[in-house]
């Protein structure tokens, strides 16, 4: 069992031993050390969660031991006990601590874009159901009004481990913008598909460097495919839409659903579709193979609507 666990376990053991020694020397020193470890763990939740996920694997060797006991019925009961006791609570802890820093394929996501004010963002985030399938976006207006503060504050408001998208809509100087957004705590940043190809290439490269997802926003791009063709590397996500102003002023333009299959057939990327206002529209988008559906929370809309949409999304789309 000891060999299964990586160095992380030994490190935690070391910390505990160090705490004991410190306490025996001087209780104040021990107290200081405890505070220091708590701060360290709070700052690096990944450290603990990887430790917990290592723990999760421990029931398996235990069941091997049980088989050696040769009493089959007993071992199966114990297996059940072990699983129910060990696995379930650990899973709960680790999902709450583990950060889904990257998106997974084969999962459907709802992407809630917050564009009004930070106060409203707080209100809506507190009402949103907690799920790793809900992505929270700091919208462009929020970023331009509050700066990177918008991203870090939304990150703080959101449940630990929530996936935060910074909709910075990069058009130039990609290096600086990606760095800023990643440092503010974003898990993904966006770049315009209409930007110069050099900028998009640089953007994707930089996102990889900072280990965040790159999203290319194809607003006002005629053919997303022809943009993708020119790129050196593929982005993680391609976002298709019509633009909010466009939807407001000329309603007849359609979301190009047929493009989703075209893109996914040719390239290994996730496709996000913007503009789902009702659950029916969201269903239609996922039915058409979209991986992510973006819904906007505008400042004139009631937040209850968005919350309801998120709830029915989790219920109806799996």
């Amino acid at each position, binding site marked *: 069992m000891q060999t299964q666990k990586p160095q992380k376990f030994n490190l935690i053991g070391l910390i505990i031993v160090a705490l004991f020694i410190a306490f025996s020397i001087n209780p104040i020193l021990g107290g200081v050390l405890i505070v220091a470890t708590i701060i360290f763990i709070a700052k690096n939740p990944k450290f603990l969660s990887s430790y917990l996920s290592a723990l999760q694997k421990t029931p398996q060797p235990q069941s091997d031991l049980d088989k050696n006991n040769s009493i089959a019925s007993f071992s199966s009961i114990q297996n059940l006990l072990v699983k129910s006791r060990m696995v379930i609570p650990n899973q709960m802890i680790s999902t709450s601590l583990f950060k889904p820093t990257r998106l997974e394929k084969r999962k459907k996501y709802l992407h809630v874009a917050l564009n009004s004010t930070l106060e409203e963002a707080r209100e809506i985030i507190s009402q949103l159901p907690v799920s790793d399938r809900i992505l929270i976006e700091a919208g462009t207006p929020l970023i331009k*009004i509050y*700066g990177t503060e918008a991203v870090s504050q939304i990150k703080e408001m959101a449940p630990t481990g929530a996936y935060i998208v910074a909709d910075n809509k990069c*058009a130039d*100087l990609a290096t600086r913008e990606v760095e*800023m957004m990643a440092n503010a705590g974003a898990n993904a940043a966006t770049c315009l598909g209409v*930007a110069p190809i*050099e900028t998009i290439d640089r953007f994707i490269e930089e996102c990889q460097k900072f280990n965040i997802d790159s999203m290319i926003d194809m607003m006002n791009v005629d053919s997303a495919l022809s943009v993708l063709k020119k790129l050196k590397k593929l982005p993680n996500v391609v976002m298709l839409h*019509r*633009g909010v*102003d466009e939807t407001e002023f000329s309603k007849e333009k359609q979301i190009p659903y047929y493009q989703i299959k075209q893109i996914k057939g040719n390239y290994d990327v996730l496709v996000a579709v913007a503009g789902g206002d009702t659950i029916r529209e969201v269903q239609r988008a996922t039915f058409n193979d979209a991986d992510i559906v973006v819904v906007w929370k505008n400042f004139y809309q009631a937040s209850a609507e968005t919350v309801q949409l998120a709830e029915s999304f989790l219920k109806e789309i799996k």
Partner: protein
Amino acid sequence: MLNRRSKYLQIAFNRSLNEVREMIAMLPASEKIIIEAGTPLVKKYGQNGISALKNWWSEKIQKPGYIVADLKCMDRGSREVEAVAEAGASAATCLGLAPIETINEFIKECEKAGIDSMVDMMNIEFPFEILQKLRKLPTIVVLHRGVDENEKNREKQIPHDQIHRIKGTYGNVLISVAGGETPRDVVRTFFNDSDIAVIWRSFYEAPEDTANLARAFLKLVK
């Protein structure tokens, strides 16, 4: 508001606010200098960044200074314009690549907020075509090349020939040209009838030289 007869030098700031403060303190106090809050600066500090620039520059020249918020609007322009006007900006920018509806809305919104509208023609081959489609003209048209494109591909040129064509057809728009960095580039920009020359790289690379650079460039602005 800008004087149509005069030429202006626009300096874009993308550094941290502390450094920008020092650089602004070094600039000569001249109304011919326009201070731009670059896109990264706006995205980093938001409204606060713009009002800080406004305060520092107005203090320096003892008059309300002209601040450009380089928003590069692509979408949802109305809220952003309102926000930067409130923060003290005198002009905001919108991408020419944005949907025409967005640009129209942006220009209308700028008029409502009482600030100048700038349409940034980055990555557009024929700015003319965009202008034709608009319901109303913007106050200023910005011709330039992206920084990232410039670094990777130095062959593409600033479209000086476009200036005459645009001014000939649409007499009352001002033209701003970005991308030239040497005094020679700036002279050429003005010689080709541009009203505003945007520079930033030389200031970015040598912030301690701000005063000398600005004086050298100001001499070229008649």
